[in-house]
């Protein structure tokens, strides 16, 4: 069957059609949940973050102008909600490149993931600063281009690349240690 476009579902959701909104959620909940898992390193926090993100998306749905893909717009909101999530968790911590906002010890919830590589990758990502983690997430898991990531994060493309290279250097070391 033909699937409705995101814009059609949004239009119907704005008119109060719950089914359309749920269809839109179903289309993106897995991606957002995985984003949450990798950004928080915790399935429970990821579930909370996912709900927080979709509440924010629904509230802002009238502001979506159809400029760019809905997915990019969704992940931009997801990024802002993720920053808010960390601010609530650690109000005093700055969220810049030098911030080492990460899990100091492996989270036991990682064991919920069946694949050891996925566990290792999630753990390694938790050791990255949030800003670098966001770039890695959007580049390798979101499959966005540098320009799209720069647009979503409100940064220049060069800054995004710089963060990505720094993150890759750190991840290289971590993944080497994980694999022995």
């Amino acid at each position, binding site marked *: 069957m033909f699937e409705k476009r995101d814009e059609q579902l949004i239009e119907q959701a704005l008119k109060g059609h719950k089914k359309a*909104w749920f269809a839109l*959620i179903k289309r993106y909940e*897995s991606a957002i949940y995985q984003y949450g898992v990798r950004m928080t390193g915790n*399935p429970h926090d990821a579930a909370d973050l996912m709900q927080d993100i979709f509440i924010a998306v629904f509230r802002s749905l009238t502001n979506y102008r159809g400029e760019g893909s809905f997915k990019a717009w969704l992940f931009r909101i997801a990024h802002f909600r993720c920053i808010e999530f960390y601010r609530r968790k650690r109000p005093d911590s700055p969220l810049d490149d030098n911030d080492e906002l990460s899990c100091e010890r492996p989270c036991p*919830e990682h064991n919920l993931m069946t694949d050891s590589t996925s566990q290792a*990758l999630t753990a390694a990502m938790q050791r990255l600063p949030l800003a670098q983690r966001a770039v890695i997430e959007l580049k390798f*898991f979101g499959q966005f*281009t540098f320009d799209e990531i720069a647009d979503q994060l409100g940064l220049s493309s060069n800054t995004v*690349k710089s963060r990505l290279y720094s993150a890759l250097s750190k991840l*290289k070391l971590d993944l080497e240690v994980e694999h022995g």
Partner: protein
Amino acid sequence: MANYESDYLFGQWLDNALTNEEREAFEALCLSDEAFAAQVETATQLSVAAEQFTPPPMPAWDKNATFVAPDKPRWWQWQGLPMMSMAMSALAMVMVVSGFSMQVSEGKLTMGFQQGPSDEQVAALVNQKLNDYQQANQTMFTQYVTALQQQQQENSTQLTQYLLTSSRQERREDFAELIKFINQQRDDDQRYYARQLTQLQREINSLDDGYPAITE
């Protein structure tokens, strides 16, 4: 071969936007620069890991909490209402100006825009109305004259009868007077004759005294 910066080539490779020439430069750099090759390898490992990433199962979560049904506007808050009102006003004005007419005849509803009658039609209509008015007046006058004549006739009859009756009475009275007068005259005559007779008798009586034999 053009001299590209390693960061640029790496970025283009990550965006999957390398041209053929850039790809050649990229591959050459991978062979010549170990640090660059290591960075590419890490990125490749990460890409593979991302593709094979197995997330924990999706938890049951409250989707309903994300949906807030918008307030449905009341019918009088409908945005098209002013426009519709204006359209209806304009329609009413057009109907008035253009002479819109609606007729119901034999169960059929006919609506249309009717123009006013022509001068000839107006003249014919006026003539017909005048004729009708004239005929009506004529009929009314005829009836009036007839009624007047009838009333005149009745009055004349009544007057004649009155005159006849009154003259007959007068004649009767005259005759009565005459008869009375005659009767009176007769009475007078009788009285006269009576007196004459009486006088005659007296004379006779007086004569009698002188002529007893005659009186016996």
